[in-house]
């Protein structure tokens, strides 16, 4: 698909982290953090990536920004293959893509006041004169619901929610088109979480932003996303429009995730979909379908044959032998 409206195309990406042992760092194996993932993100949409810890969702987000180098596969941003770009070209492209991390405490420099933090990306990219940069910083603060006098304050003077607002303002400073939001609200209290989620939605509408929204909370992902991909052990197991995947999930893992949401109003009964056991280690994933060790409906062939990634309905993809 070389659609004009595709902003990011991820093609069969793999990221293996070496496991080294001993004094000489002999490589004894690999953690397959991401193991062959393919998807597109369209201009102006929010793509949600969900899964449990260690499923590779964060690594996927970082690989798209080339913050980790890929083991295999390609990432295209607006038609350009990122791996083909040299450092100068990549730097230019970075202006168009930004990231917001989970922990607003560690993503701000404690010795830089808010003004300096907001102006820095502009300086780095050589945008505007110093006076213009300061104006821009003030405007950004207003965008995220802070006041101009906050410019001279330091990160420790802010609460977690306010810090996340600053981080978002900084990401917006270079007028990016694409923002990877990596668990942006999971460190926040619920009443603050909703403020930040509403802000992200508002900003998206205002600036036509495209989001990759990485999170483990299924309700949060539903609220923000247009399309959702579910990851398990480095692979994507299901991908569909938000409505479709929450109302008609096909993969047994997606069903189990929904049934596991406490409170019991996801519409999926716990007893039918509860998973036994733990997630296997990504250093040594099971053969065949990597989910078969916990799957309540696994068949003998699931242990041997890796299920194909196929379209089972309009824009609904799944990797499961038992699917429709």
């Amino acid at each position, binding site marked *: 698909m070389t659609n004009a409206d595709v902003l990011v195309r991820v093609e069969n990406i793999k990221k293996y982290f070496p496991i080294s042992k001993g004094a000489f760092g002999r490589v004894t194996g690999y953690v397959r953090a991401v193991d062959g993932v393919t998807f597109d993100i369209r201009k102006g949409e929010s793509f949600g990536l969900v899964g449990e810890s260690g499923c590779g969702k964060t690594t996927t987000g970082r690989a798209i920004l080339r913050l980790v180098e890929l083991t295999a596969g390609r990432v295209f941003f607006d038609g350009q293959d990122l791996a083909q770009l040299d450092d100068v070209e990549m730097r230019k492209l970075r202006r168009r893509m930004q990231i917001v991390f989970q922990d607003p405490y560690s993503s701000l420099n404690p010795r830089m006041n808010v003004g300096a933090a907001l102006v820095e990306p502009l300086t780095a990219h050589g945008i505007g004169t110093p006076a213009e940069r300061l104006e821009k910083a003030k405007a950004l603060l207003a965008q995220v619901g802070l006041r101009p006098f906050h410019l001279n304050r330091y990160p420790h003077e802010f609460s977690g929610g306010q810090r996340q607002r600053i981080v978002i303002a900084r990401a917006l400073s270079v007028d990016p088109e694409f923002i990877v939001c990596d668990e942006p609200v999971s460190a926040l209290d*619920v009443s603050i979480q909703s403020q930040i989620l509403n802000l992200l939605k508002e900003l998206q509408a205002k600036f036509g932003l495209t989001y990759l929204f990485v999170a483990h909370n299924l309700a949060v992902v539903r609220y923000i996303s247009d399309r959702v991909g579910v990851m398990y052990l480095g692979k994507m197991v299901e991908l569909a429009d938000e409505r479709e995947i929450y109302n008609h999930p096909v993969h047994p893992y997606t069903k189990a995730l929904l049934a596991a949401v406490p409170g019991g109003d996801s519409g999926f009964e716990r007893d039918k979909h*509860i998973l036994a056991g733990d997630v296997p280690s990504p250093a040594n994933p099971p053969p065949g379908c990597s989910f078969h060790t916990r799957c309540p409906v696994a068949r003998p062939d699931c242990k041997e044959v890796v299920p194909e990634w196929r379209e089972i309905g309009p824009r609904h993809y799944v990797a499961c032998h038992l699917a429709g």
Partner: protein
Amino acid sequence: MSDVLLEVKNLHTTFDTMDGAVPAVCGVSLEINRGEVLALVGESGCGKSVTSLSIMRLIPCPPGRISADKISFDGVDLLGLSNDEMRKVRGNTMAMIFQEPMTSLNPVMTIGAQLCEPLETHRGMSRLEAAEESMRMLKLAGVSLPEQRMHEYPHQLSGGMRQRVMIAMALTCRPKLLIADEPTTALDVTIQAQILELMKELRRELGMSMMLITHDMGVVREMSDRVAIMYAGQIVEQGPVKEIFQNPLHPYTYGLLGSIPPINRKAETLRVIRGVVPSPMFFPSGCRFHPRCDYATAECSDQMPELMEVGGDSRLVRCWHPLIEKGGANRD
């Protein structure tokens, strides 16, 4: 024997710091009946954990100061107990599990040794009896291969398995009350579901009471009979879970419930509680929620409302203008 297992009246816990006294818990009163699960809910810093630690007398004094009109557990006045006597209650008839199982288990002791310890101290079992009982508890808590696990160390187990071990340990002495402080917060959802199912099963089987401390409304709805919502060191609303979810009376509860994205549909926008939680050093005058409240009047900033009974059904609310007067909160 009365129905009330735990009764707390007017609990105050204050910490003396370099910057002055920090009132973490201000006049909390609650009861837990036998076999009942009470959830204590609120955002970080609202005093929910300190409340439970104060009841267990696990707050270091100094810097902490605890005062209460009454803390009675199973007919015993906990405030009157010596430290030695309190130690016998703790881990015996009253047990606790914490959020992060890795930091609550001793990393240099095997699982078996840690499980046997309370049995030998509290129940005077021999080593062999203790080992057998521990194995039984591990099995009950759904730990696979219990014989093998007894000889393993905490780092060899996954997060979910560690929490099962913690639960087994808490249950070894058959407590009448289990205090669970964010028991599933550090776990992935599928593992969380396993642990919640386990806790429900054990509650049915052993008939124990539970005080569940959490910030997750889904967990509250699934696990508890009654809920107490805390804000800025006080209980602001208390009542049966179903009714509070259907018809919250306190504007804070109403805001809190509306700020959680639903799982069964896509919400257009989330309700927002403006502003931030006040610091305990500078609690607002009058009702502590009034600067963030949409319904606040002059009265609210002047006078602190009491926890009052509203609308029957054992519902309590600390508000001058509970939402019931406006025809319930379900208007959106």
